């Protein structure tokens, strides 16, 4: 169980589930959760490649920066969703399509 392919498989499953959530969900919060799944799949790939194909820890550092970026993205995106709900009374991404200022 200590092969690179095992970790890559977990990352691929997470990525496909996240992409599925981003594509099919109508709730904006669920779409954001799918984005987080995709970012975590990328993190698993970073750490796995860093562990199995080099001796440095650069993949770990980069995973930490991806986590930081995910935190900032979640904060801004949740504020935007809050604004959308206040203005349009919906969090459905299909209904929130008007761009009137």
């Amino acid at each position, binding site marked *: 169980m200590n092969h*690179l*392919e095992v970790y*890559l*498989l977990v990352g*691929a*499953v997470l*990525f*496909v589930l996240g*992409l599925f959530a981003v594509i099919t969900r109508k709730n904006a919060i669920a779409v954001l959760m799918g984005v987080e799944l995709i970012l975590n799949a990328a993190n698993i790939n970073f750490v796995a490649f860093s*562990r*199995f*194909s*080099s*001796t440095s*820890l650069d993949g*770990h*550092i980069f995973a*930490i*920066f991806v986590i*930081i*970026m995910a*935190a*900032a*993205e979640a*904060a*801004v995106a*949740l*504020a*935007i969703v*809050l*604004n959308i709900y*206040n*203005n349009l009374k919906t969090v459905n991404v299909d209904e929130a399509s008007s761009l009137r200022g």
Partner: protein
Amino acid sequence: MGLLLIIGYVMNTSQWNTVTSAPPAETVNTIGELLLTRWLLPFEVASILLLAALVGAAMLARRSRGGEEA
């Protein structure tokens, strides 16, 4: 599902050049040292990014709930 099959096929048929090395005994010490020496500038940029995201999110969330003047 199809995408997962494609990823799995590529994953299994490609040759990864892996090195077999023993896992390091402890990585937290090394990561902390790297963050404050070699990756110091990205670390600071990330702190600025977090601060900007915090301020931006607070402004976005406050303006809508308060008065309608802005």
